[in-house]
């Protein structure tokens, strides 16, 4: 075995380790609202998230990744020393993986995205020095951590208020939900298709402009919206037999069907956003080993995204079932209507932020969405002190992975060079 192969094997191992940790920690939270509302079972949640997550990674994930986390540091400064770059990426992946693993074990609410960002900043500081870090690029990242949960809250809260007025308070709520459902399905598909066109099809160099993209997305979504309505009506009729409160259990099961769609949507968005956290540095190592140079941007191979997506699903399957169960049992306040709103708002925010290239945390966006529904008076008692926990997790995650990455980098450099 050559040294190169050894490096690649080690890198793959660490990359997959990070991916599995992301699955165990992040994806479980992403499916939490679906399981909590009993729209889907734990098994279904695992299956859906594995498939939709892998699809999200492949179809809408970052095929072209800025090697060093959205340009926080200029990798060209290391162009003469690809070895250092490889070691740095390796140390960063390992540091982030260890931290997420530790946090999952301790039950700490951390963000996998922030872990990798922190680790990469640490590597940047130790390899080229703090003065070379592009701190200007750090500001929008930090802002996005605040803005993204807010965006999730606003979208979910507005949608819930709208639903309450138009559907829950309608004379015949079931009829109203049938009437408005094509619109919701339409929205889900428009955003799915747009994110697919703008990110997934980038490799084909189609370079569609917004107008062309919309002219494809809108008609297709209209068809899906109308077809989806009739499909769901048929499904609901099939599943519901007779019940005392038929009017309301019909809506519940109708929205449970819709939530099946948004659960896929969330898992897809997660795949698009978070798989890159593990796959990005992994791809950077591969590229550096093969070309013996450090590129500003590297192409993430299709197979890597696919494997990354599957590894995330595998991590969920191996360690996430318990998490999903705990979450499902604890958030019974979420019914299908609320779950639908939370997932719609969260997934939309994640896909939009992912498109803008902002590293955001899936979990934080989902928490934001649920709080948004709470503010629309659509949830039981919510503990807003959790916001403090999120802030603590930002304050702990970044320095921890930053210093761990620096430490690991030094050790590896000491051992090898």
């Amino acid at each position, binding site marked *: 075995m050559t040294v190169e192969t050894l490096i690649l094997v080690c890198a793959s191992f660490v990359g997959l380790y990070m991916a599995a940790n992301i699955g165990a920690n992040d994806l479980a939270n992403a499916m939490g609202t679906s399981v909590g509302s009993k729209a889907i079972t734990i098994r279904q949640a695992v299956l859906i998230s594995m498939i939709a997550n892998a699809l999200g990674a492949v179809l809408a994930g970052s095929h072209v990744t800025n090697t060093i986390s959205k340009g926080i540091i200029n990798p060209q400064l290391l162009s003469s020393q690809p070895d250092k770059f490889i070691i740095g990426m390796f140390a960063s992946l390992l540091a982030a993986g260890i931290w997420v693993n530790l946090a999952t074990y301790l039950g700490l609410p951390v963000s996998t995205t922030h872990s990798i960002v922190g680790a990469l900043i640490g590597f940047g500081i130790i390899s080229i020095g703090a003065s070379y870090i592009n701190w200007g690029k750090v500001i929008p990242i930090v802002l996005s951590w605040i803005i993204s949960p807010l965006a999730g809250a606003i979208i979910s809260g507005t949608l819930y208020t709208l639903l309450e007025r138009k559907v829950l308070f309608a004379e015949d709520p079931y009829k109203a939900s049938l009437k408005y459902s094509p619109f919701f399905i339409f929205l889900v598909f428009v955003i799915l298709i747009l994110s697919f066109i703008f990110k997934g099809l980038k490799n084909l160099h189609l370079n569609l402009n917004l107008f062309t993209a919309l002219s494809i997305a809108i008609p297709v979504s209209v068809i899906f919206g109308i077809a989806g309505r009739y499909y769901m009506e048929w499904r609901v009729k099939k599943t519901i037999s007779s019940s005392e409160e038929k009017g309301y259990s019909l809506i519940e099961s109708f929205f449970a069907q819709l939530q099946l769609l948004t659960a896929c949507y969330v898992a897809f968005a997660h795949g698009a956003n978070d798989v890159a956290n593990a796959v990005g540095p992994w791809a950077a190592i591969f590229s550096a080993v093969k070309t013996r140079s450090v590129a500003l941007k590297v192409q993430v191979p299709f197979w890597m995204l696919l494997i990354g997506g599957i590894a995330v699903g595998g991590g969920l399957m191996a360690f996430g079932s318990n998490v999903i169960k705990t979450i499902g049992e*604890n958030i019974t306040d979420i019914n299908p209507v609320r779950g639908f709103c939370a997932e719609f708002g969260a997934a939309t925010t994640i896909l939009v932020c992912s498109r803008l290239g902002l590293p955001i945390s899936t979990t934080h966006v989902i928490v934001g969405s649920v709080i948004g529904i709470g503010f629309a008076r*659509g949830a039981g008692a919510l503990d807003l002190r959790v916001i403090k926990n999120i802030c603590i997790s930002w304050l702990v995650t970044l320095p921890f992975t930053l210093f761990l990455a620096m430490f690991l980098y030094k050790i590896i450099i000491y051992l090898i060079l």
Partner: protein
Amino acid sequence: MRWLLTSLFFKSPFENLQRHADKIKECTHMFKKAINLHMQGKYEEFENIKDEVARLESEADAIKRNIRNHLPRGILMPVDKFQFFQYIREQDKVLDEIEETLFWLSFKHVSIPEGLKDEFVHLVDLVIKPVNLLPELVNQAIVYFRTNYKDHRNRVKSTCRDIRQWEREADFVERELKLKIFNTIKDAFLIFYFIRLTEYIGSIADHAENASDMMRAMIAR
């Protein structure tokens, strides 16, 4: 293990509110029994039941304190927290008034004159009616906050209306009874004793109505 999403969800204080309301229903049952025993002149058994009610009251008090003490700032509820506390206060006062009535009767054992017995029994029956609706009211509210359906909200509203109507009827009977007390009893002490007793009984329904008004305010849109 703690998970960010699960730690977001706080145990709803409405469950304890339901327990509190259930305790009240238990008490109204005993209250009725105590009044009957008192009228039959079985004061010893009456005293036992009074003590039992006092025990239940202190249990309900513990539930109330538990709700209040474990609702820190930073908990987002579907209702205004101030209104929620007002509601518990009023619901708790219902129990206080039941206890006060029994204590008033036990301070001095005065037998109720034959001519007033029926009216007192009628008044007691009437004030118990709105109080017994409180557990149902809380339950309906819990269902409404879980689903946010218009229908479920209408049920809460209709129970509030029922409580209000029973209270109005009890008020009417209370006034009639006071009039009768003034007209039939000559002794100043007895007048004071029975007027005060009537007021205590009447205020049980008043607080049930206040509670339901608060509930109505909580579900206002």
